[in-house]
């Protein structure tokens, strides 16, 4: 299995440094949560880690090699990525969409794992009852889960998830993070961009807090998600309760009108 190492990564988008000198190492078997306010550069950093966007300086290593040294198909067998774009242009069946996740393995011996990987992915994401529906007819949350199933079916040592819980209800949010934990326990490297800090605190091995494109803090949830740091970076007063060694982040809400 394979880890990720970002060395001094900067990403320039239209003349603006969106990610600035970020160093980050994610070892095999770890679940890392990437958090930070809107516009902090989380998705851009994830795109750089995935090899989709080349850093303007620095480099990202996947295993022993830099991302730009991989052919695109090789990379697709190393890492899978869930983007925030869940649209499908034509009314494909859900089963077709999940099967597309196996396409990097076509014409390799691993294609024999197709059926197994697909059934595992659909069971995990709780979409077996949707397989014969058309993707375009699904609700937002169902689409998100089918897209996650497609990413899981790709069956790669590195799994990158960009806001996988955005459209999901409470139960499925928990499910997704539980799946992410299981993936890490299987020895995969998992990076998840999250907005819900309590969710990040509850499931992640480590949390990386980005602010204005820079790495502000990196460590275990209780180390990073402190009252002082979160209040400062997010510019809102919060209270942090630590329960079972996991932080719960609650915004202070003084004087809500009508209370």
């Amino acid at each position: 299995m394979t880890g990720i190492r970002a060395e001094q990564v900067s990403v320039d988008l239209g003349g603006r440094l969106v990610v600035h000198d970020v160093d980050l190492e994610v070892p095999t078997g770890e679940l890392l949560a990437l958090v930070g306010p809107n516009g902090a550069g989380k998705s851009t950093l994830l795109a750089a880690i995935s090899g989709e966007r080349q850093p303007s300086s620095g480099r990202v290593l996947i295993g022993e090699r830099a991302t730009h040294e991989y052919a695109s198909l090789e990379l697709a067998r190393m890492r899978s990525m869930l983007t925030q774009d869940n649209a499908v242009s034509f009314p494909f069946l859900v089963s077709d969409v999940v099967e597309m996740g196996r396409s990097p393995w076509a014409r390799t011996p691993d294609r024999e794992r197709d059926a197994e990987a697909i059934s595992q992915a659909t069971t995990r994401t709780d979409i077996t009852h949707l397989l014969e529906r058309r993707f375009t007819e699904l609700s937002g949350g169902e689409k998100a889960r089918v897209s996650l199933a497609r990413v899981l079916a790709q069956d790669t040592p590195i799994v990158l998830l960009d806001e996988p819980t955005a459209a999901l209800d409470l139960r499925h949010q928990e499910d997704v993070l539980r799946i992410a934990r299981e993936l890490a326990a299987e020895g995969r490297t998992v990076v998840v961009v999250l907005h819900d800090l309590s969710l990040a605190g509850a499931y992640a091995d480590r949390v990386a807090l980005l602010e204005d494109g820079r790495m502000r803090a990196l460590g275990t949830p209780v180390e990073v998600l402190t009252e002082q740091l979160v209040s400062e970076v997010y510019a809102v007063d919060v209270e942090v309760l630590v329960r079972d060694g996991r932080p719960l982040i609650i915004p202070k809400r003084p004087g809500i009108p009508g209370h």
Partner: protein
Amino acid sequence: MSRLVHLARRRTILGISLALLLVAAVLVSAVVGQFSVSASEVVGSLLQAIGIPNSWAPDDPTAEAALWVIRFPRIVMAMAVGAALAVAGAVMQAIFGNPLAEPGVVGVSSGAALGAALAIVTGLLAYGEWTIAVLAFAGGLAATLLVYGVSRANGRTEVVTLLLTGIAVNAFGGAGLAFLLFMAGTASREQIVFWQLGSLSGSLWREALLVLVVAAIGTVIAVALGRRYDILALGERNARHLGIDVERLRFWSIVLVALLTGAAVAFVGIIAFVGLVIPHLMRMIIGPSHRALLISSAFGGALLIVVADLLSRTLVPGAELPIGLLTSLIGGPFFFILLWRQRRASGGWA
């Protein structure tokens, strides 16, 4: 898995129906015309041509000539043009991620027609009759690249942008054609008008066979890329994360569209909406998977143009309607319905 079984059955039924209808349409098309030939004579003549002697073949050399000099090349041309345009439409929809993309609507056809007209007016034709085909291809390619460059944002093409770009490209192509009409002598002028309306009359064997070869090769290439087009439906980024070289796929697909459209337009003029109507109907019947979609679109397009050509030369006795007029007559309202449904689905002109 009932829906999957259902889909497989639909595919088989569609394949058989298309084949039967195409054979029937070809036979009727060969029989009907100013010079009367019977169906058994058509079959006999065809059998004789592949070396099977039989008593059905026409004795009259005029009937033989009517079939082999006039009707058969025209039918082959109709099938080849229909297949080329329908496949071009399906490929275009795949790379634009939008079911409304079509060579005629977005201006590829008018770019190709402009190229062809340029060849006629400037006298480049003197360097060989293939200059029309080459310039039609160049014009079609330029128009496709232009539409592609202008109308895409974040890897997808919104309907409004696509249609507005189409209007602009069509307007420019129309202006270019009008200018060439203004410049041209009477003979060239007639030839250009022919291009704008579309017609299969006077198709020659060598032209028909060229378009047939291009259509066949183009369809095979498109089908080979079919799996990648499926994945492209996930959006550009997701396709890239699945190891597809999106830029290369897009570029070669555009060349393919220009080649198919250019070959068709060079010899029969602008026949619009085939690339819109046929892939859409096929998608409704057998679903969006591109390999089956492209193959059935090729046959569906061939069938449509053979029938449309038959209608164009029989609807008005003693005269021939332009075929482009017929396809637009059907395609226009169809396009409107598609547009209306897509607007309802997305809750606005997105």
